[in-house]
């Protein structure tokens, strides 16, 4: 099968690879780069587990071919924080017990990051609406909403 050269930046690190055109960005991240923080659930855009930031905007990595990301900049959950140095949003998820099995968490975090950048998130309705494309089978969402609400409120005080 034909392979195509691509070069992209993931979490600040430049990668050059050859990929099959049908390689999904989700599989590229997980299999080719070993970044297994990005999870894969449904592979048709409905569960949100695979959400990453693509050139700054949240995107479904399962609905994007890696070849379409030549020259792009991708941020995954691995680029958010590190053990001992969590991102404020991760810190808030931890504090509020906003995860149980953790399967949905990377997608929740990357989605929330984009929501925080683009929307006021002044009400719980707005937060829930923003999360409507991310499924969680454990938490019942309440603690996820709590964690995001707190981060949204803190955003007014600092950079967020």
């Amino acid at each position, binding site marked *: 099968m034909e392979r195509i050269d691509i070069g992209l930046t993931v979490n600040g690190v430049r990668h050059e690879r050859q990929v099959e055109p049908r390689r999904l960005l989700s599989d590229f991240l997980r299999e080719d780069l070993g970044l297994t923080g990005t999870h894969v659930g449904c592979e048709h855009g409905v569960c949100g587990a695979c959400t990453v930031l*693509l050139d700054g905007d949240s995107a479904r990595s399962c609905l994007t071919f890696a070849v379409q990301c030549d020259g792009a900049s991708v941020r995954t959950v691995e680029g958010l924080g590190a053990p001992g140095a969590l991102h404020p949003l991760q810190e808030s998820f931890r504090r509020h017990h906003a995860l149980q099995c953790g399967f949905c968490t990377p997608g929740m975090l990357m989605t929330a990051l984009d929501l925080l950048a683009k929307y006021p998130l002044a009400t719980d309705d707005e937060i829930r609406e923003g999360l409507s494309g991310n499924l969680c089978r454990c938490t019942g969402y309440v603690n996820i909403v709590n964690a995001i609400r707190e981060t949204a409120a803190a955003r007014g005080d600092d950079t967020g």
Partner: protein
Amino acid sequence: MKPPAFKYVAAGSVEEATARLAEYGDDARPIAGGQSLVPMMNFRLVSPAVLVDIRRIAPPDAIEEADGHVRVGALTRHRALETSPLVRERFPVLAAAMGHVAHLAIRNRGTIGGSLCHADPAAELPALAVLLDARIHTASCSGERIVEAGSFFEGALWTALEDGEIVTRIDFPLLRPGTGWGFREFARRHGDFALAGAAATVTGSAGRAVEVRIALFGVGETPVRATAAEALLTGTGLEPDAVAAAVDALRNAIDPDDDLHASAEYRRHLAGVMAERALGDAWARVGAGAGGGAA
């Protein structure tokens, strides 16, 4: 699942895209945002041998006003249409509708051209194009043409596009002063495809509706204009009995499907409720504007 293998070609211009599509014929498909095509490929519902990536054939997110129209480039993303100050000023109904399309992550990638060409019967944008009498510009190896939105949608996932033809631009003729708008849909969960929805514009003058437009979606194979209802309301002051008669007419004119999510009867009922609310919003906005409508 994983998508089947295909050959990938990135086109740098409209000419190159149409040439490549002509070269590969039936085996080729354009890909824009991929938000409808990639799920279908992952499910192996479609397996094109060649994908022609058209994202770089024009500047992204091109929205401008010219010659009495707002022109939107086919590669404009849903999110750009939703947030454009020009669209918010000229077509608040379009901006409002875009907020209902899928989820932020999908609106960040999905394009206007892709939504029109995918032609899902429950999609918002095709209904808005029909409501607003948009003109769809296309290009192929045999030249360019303009298709009225009203004749673009031929069936579920089926359009008037010929093989090898792509959409390049959508022009929305400006609304007349004194036009109010309404947009209502019902979905089980925000961002899901609507079970049924309605969009309306009403142009008022001296307390009367001089022009009424209603488009429905999720109620049949394609978005439809409720022409009988429009005619019944034109010249009225949208009094409750006039609206009730129009809603009856509209319910009789549609032929929704039964499916897992809703029965045909429920959809028919819902379409009427959505239309009534959209009309109410539109009429209230005529009154609130400078155009002089509802007292």
